[in-house]
């Protein structure tokens, strides 16, 4: 089509000269139609209140300075509120910051959650033990124990092997990482929930990670 148009143009070169194509820059959030300023509100669960108070500055600084998003804590409502500024470069920043704060609320460390701000493709996956297998009472407790391992070493092993971060909150499990890594971690955790001994899971992990490493 372009060539034909060009030919047409060439043919009709004496007659007309079209203007160049316009280049539009991306819209800033406050220029976008709809609300000029956008908000996000992340509620703080009670068990994260004190840790939030401790690491507030670690959260505030990158959000405000690097992401250029306004952030404040609503003490009464126990919420963290985020707002775009006029010089916020990208609308996705707001979402990223919201995700970052949300990840912290789920239980992840700031240094781990910061990765969300820095990398695009990191996600948090959450699921429950009962989604994998219905366990009750002692079995459930044992499953949780299996997941963590002695002193948390099983969890750490999975984290290190799959380059993810895992939070086991009672019956809820949250995994932070890239898509493929989440899958690896999720599979390992599912095996553990379903009753595999840790050694078996380790061997599987080993195989998978070595394969992954080979690829690169």
């Amino acid at each position, binding site marked *: 089509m372009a060539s034909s148009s060009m030919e047409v143009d060439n043919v009709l070169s004496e007659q007309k000269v079209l203007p160049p194509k316009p280049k539009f820059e991306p819209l800033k959030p406050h220029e976008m139609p709809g609300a000029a300023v956008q908000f996000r509100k992340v509620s703080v669960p009670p068990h994260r209140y004190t840790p939030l108070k401790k690491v507030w500055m670690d959260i505030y600084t990158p959000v405000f300075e690097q992401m250029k998003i306004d952030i404040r804590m609503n003490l009464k409502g126990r919420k963290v509120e985020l707002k775009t500024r006029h010089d916020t470069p990208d609308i996705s920043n707001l979402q990223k910051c919201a995700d970052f704060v949300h990840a912290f609320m789920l239980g992840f460390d700031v*240094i781990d959650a910061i990765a969300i701000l820095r990398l695009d493709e990191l996600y948090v996956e959450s699921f429950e033990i009962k989604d994998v297998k219905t366990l009750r009472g002692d079995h459930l407790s044992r499953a949780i124990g299996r997941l963590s391992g002695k002193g948390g070493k099983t969890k750490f092993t999975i984290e290190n092997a799959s380059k993810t971060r895992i939070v086991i909150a009672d019956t809820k499990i949250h995994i932070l990482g890239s898509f493929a890594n989440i899958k690896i971690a999720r599979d390992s955790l599912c095996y553990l929930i379903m009753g595999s001994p840790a*050694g078996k899971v380790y061997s599987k992990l080993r195989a998978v990670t070595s394969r992954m490493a080979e690829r690169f």
Partner: protein
Amino acid sequence: MANTNDAGVEALRRLQQIDPPSLLAPNPSVSETARSASQYLFTTLRPFSPKSPLDELLVDGYDAEQIWHQIDLQSQPLLSTLRRRLNQFVKNPEEIAQFKVPLDVGKKLEKKKRVELEEEESDDFDEELDDDDDDFEGVEKKKAKGGSEGEDDFEEEDDEDEEGSEDEDDEEDEKEKVKGGGIEDKFLKIDELTEYLEKEEDNYEKGEERDEADEDSEEDDELEKAGEFEMDDEDDDDDDEEDEEAEDMGNVRYEDFFGGKNEKGSKRKDQLLEVSGDEDDMESTKQKKRTASTYEKQREKIQSKIVLMEKANIEPKTWTMQGEVTASKRPINSAFEVDLDFEHNVRPTPVITEEVTASIEEMIQKKIVEGLFNDVQRAPKLPSKAPREVKQLDDNKSGQGLADLYEQEYVQKTDPTSAPLSFKDELKNEASTLFKKICLKLDALSHFNFAPKPVIEDMSFQTNVPALAMEEIAPVAVSDAAMLAPEEVFDGKGDVKEEAELTQAERKRRRANKKRKFKAEAVNKLEKKARLEKKADNAISCQVDG
């Protein structure tokens, strides 16, 4: 001779009259009579024992033992010949009947005396001998011959006397009977053989005494008789004369034994005639046999063979020729008799002899001396692809944040030169810190202006120090046992279990860990080797270039 004979007889008579119990006590008169009696006996027996060295029994001044030995010398060969003759007679009882000699009265008497003496003088002679003699008496009586223990001479005499009669008898016998035994035919007759053997024995025993002329004459006579046996009705006399004339010991011919070859058939015919006694049939068969040509003979032979073969073909074959034969189709244990040939798949076991063991030991010693042990060496695995760096799972909380982790990963992807910090790098770091320490010390020793590096104090807490440190005047013993708790002293990891306490899964886990470590070490070794080789190659190449 007569006087001595009478004396001897008298002595014997006296001995007979003595009571046996009185013989037990030594009595000089009895011994005298005994000696004279034995002397008499000896001299009477002397002619029958040609080989004995003594002419008479030497009695004067001789011991009983010596006298006995002399008697023994004479009697032993006689006994052996007697036994032989007896065995011959046992085998061929007919021969006994042939010896028909009228008994002489004198001989009879002598025999009786000798028999009595034998019965009395039981000390000197075995009972067996007596029995034999008794038996022999019976035989002798049959034969109607005089004599005492085991004498051949009387037999010889009789033989000589009877030769003529024997020959006549044999001739008659020859005519009357043709023995149907398989061995005998017109060539071989056992009677003649035995006669011949006996004659030869006698000749041999007499030996040098005989004149050669006599022997020759005897042989001539024998040969004549041999010829006579076969010549029956036909005109043999001419042949005999011819044979005798042509005869030397070397040129013995067929005709000597069996007459002319022309008469061979006729002789056979005659014999057949005698056997069957039916002249008509014999004549007809005689004619047929005369007209049978060689061709017909051959044909008859072949036909008989054909008949046999056809018979064999019709009959069922033997089991060995029947192809596949099971055990039920052949007779029991018949496989033992047949030499079966089949292939052995297994090599026969070697027979271990001393030589074999010696050779093996020699080889072993040689190998020990040379140090040439054929140890099985693991074949080096060919590296098909680069050895995978086995990632060891770290079960500690990772120090880096997730962001740093991904950052590292990104950097690794984009910039391949920046290698990740691995275990080796940690070792390198450790090594470098140690080296720095050493360098510091050396610098302190060697530099004039030395500025020591600031020491980074690493504080560690020892919580198990006793609260009070009382100064003791004389510390008896100092030990660190009180300082550290057992769990601090213990440098194991986790829950340590005994070998026996481990479960199967734990054992497997241990083994798997071991294997992993071993593999990692192997990988490291290979890499080291590769690096060393590279360095060596480089060095060599440098040298070469340089």
